[in-house]
């Protein structure tokens, strides 16, 4: 059975004030129907631009998708007309965003914002669309959904608004949901609720989910596999357990070490990776992580390592992956 989504060699660049920003530099991954994965990495690693490119929501100017293929339900999205793409957005692929406080239009009622997609994609009438919207709101656990359709975003709390965004995104029964850091702007207590809500709905509705996050810990329990991005590349991709047990890339190691431990073994100090992320206006020809990598040797500063397939769905982009793995025997860094 072909995958639901197959991304091959995706390249997206931004053109700004004479500079070219190499945001996504040949990213490839695939996702099966109903499966879930996480794309993790720090700010500026290219994870958000990657998923915005899938939806073709990168605006030109300044951004442009310059190469690659995005095969979704056996069609290359990058070759569709704008009109065909519009019929996929919000319908087959839906998205929820980081900040629920700003993602809803402040001057339009929740009902209008929820029904406009339903009417455009499913051709529902006003009445039917409102019924469907209310049904979705109750699915995400919003009390008195029917009455609240006429309320405006400012009459809801942050957590409620993210629930509304989720209801909105799922209302057309998408095959793929992209969740771009949906919990970052929320209270810690609400974060777990939102993750659980999306996970529960995924099982119920059978859709695939791509989580974008910089928090490996938060999504670990709900995804099948993880892609780690750095400097516009996927540097490691792996089934989630394998990633935790046998991280291969030094950057992944660093990310895992940076998760706070609850037993005090980190003695009150959080681990952090020294140095700065690469300047994507002048992307290095070599391994982008080399300047910050404690394992770097001359070779790392000379050429970009290829993405090595290690079998069992694991791949890594590092010249010294085997040695790094050997130096960090399972669990040693925990």
């Amino acid at each position, binding site marked *: 059975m072909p995958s639901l989504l197959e991304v091959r060699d995706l390249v997206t660049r931004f053109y700004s004030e004479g500079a070219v920003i190499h945001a996504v530099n040949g990213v490839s991954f695939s996702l099966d129907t109903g499966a879930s994965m996480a794309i993790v990495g720090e700010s500026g690693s290219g994870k958000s631009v990657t998923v915005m490119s899938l939806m073709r929501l990168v605006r030109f*100017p300044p951004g442009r998708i310059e190469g690659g293929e995005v095969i979704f339900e056996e069609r290359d999205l990058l070759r569709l007309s704008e009109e065909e793409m519009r019929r*996929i957005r*919000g319908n087959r692929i839906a998205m929820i965003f980081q900040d629920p406080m700003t993602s*809803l*239009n402040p*001057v339009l009622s929740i009902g209008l914002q929820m029904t406009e997609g339903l009417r455009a994609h499913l051709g529902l009438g006003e009445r039917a669309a409102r019924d469907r919207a209310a049904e979705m709101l109750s699915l995400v656990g919003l009390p008195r959904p029917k009455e609240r359709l006429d309320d405006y975003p400012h009459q809801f709390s942050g957590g409620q608004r993210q629930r509304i965004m989720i209801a909105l995104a799922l209302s057309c029964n998408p095959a793929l949901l992209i969740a771009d850091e949906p919990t970052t702007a929320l209270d810690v207590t609400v974060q777990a609720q939102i993750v659980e809500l999306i996970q529960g709905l995924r099982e119920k509705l059978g859709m695939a989910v791509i989580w974008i996050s910089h928090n490996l810990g938060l999504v670990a329990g709900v995804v099948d596999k993880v892609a780690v991005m750095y400097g516009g590349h996927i540097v490691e991709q792996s089934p989630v357990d394998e990633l935790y047990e046998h991280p291969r890339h030094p950057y992944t190691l660093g990310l895992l070490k940076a998760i706070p431990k609850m037993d005090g073994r980190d003695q009150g100090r959080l681990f952090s990776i020294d140095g700065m992320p690469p300047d994507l206006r002048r992307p290095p020809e070599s391994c982008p992580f080399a300047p910050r990598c404690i394992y770097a040797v001359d070779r790392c500063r000379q050429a970009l390592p290829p993405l090595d397939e290690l079998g069992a769905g694991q791949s890594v982009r590092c010249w010294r992956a085997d040695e790094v793995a050997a130096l960090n025997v399972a669990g040693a860094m925990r």
Partner: protein
Amino acid sequence: MTTYILRRLLVSIPILLGITVIVFFVASKMPGDAVLAMISTETPQAEDLIKLRRGQLGLDLPLYVQYGRWLWQLLQGNLGYSFQTGESVIDILLARIPATLQLMGTALLIAIVLGVAMGVVSALKQYSRTDYTFTFLGFAGISIPDFFLGMVLVYLLAIQWPLFPTSGISTAGEPYSLVDNLRHLALPALALGLVRTATFMRYTRTSVLEVMNNDYVRTARAKGLSEWLVVVRHILRNALIPVVTVIGLTLPVLFGGSVIIEMIFQWPGIGLMFIGAVTARDSPVIMGYVLFSAVMVQASNLLTDMAYSFLDPRIRYD
């Protein structure tokens, strides 16, 4: 809402009173008076005549008494009588207000429709040739005074290419026809409207650019809405909120502008009447004009605030 409107109306009473007091006393400091404007000092027994006439018009009374009499009349619904013609000021105003409203309304309509449309296009096509052209025209429009633009329009569209008449509201001696009226309206309305078009366009452009980058616009696109819906429903609705303020603040300026434009184009509205009244020191007419324009400005401010709460559900008055 009703309480809010009532409160605003009550507050506007002292404001209107204050305006009339200031204008009354400042206008009285103008050199000469209505009688001197009427009676030449060359006339035999000029002095006696002047004294007699001043007495008849009440101009020999102390200023505060004159103001008091005007105010007392006003409370009885009477704005007094023109010193020049003896006509009731209310009748004069009523006869001329429609012409001014037609001119101002058309100018405002031109400015809003053209200005908002050009501003939106300019913003959506930022840094394109269209944007640069509109920006250039915008700065030109903001920099040109409306009376000068009026003269340029007369030169181009009435003298070089005689398309439109240059004065009056309709052709004298012919029965009224709408087409004829609109042809007369074209030049003054354009002169008054185009300058405001430039202002509205610049504000709309800035506002749309700001709104365009909001997260909710991205959400709207991610829903798969047509670009038209994204622009009109999600961008424009939000972008217009600050533009409404500017439109509201423009009404008073438009009143001032229409005085000069009415004079250039001999448009028989209250602006032209006002100029005549000032020259003749016809203070009842001056006061009538001032009171009417002050009421209009107050009303436009209130309407602007009402428009906010209509456009933005976060704003509620109670």
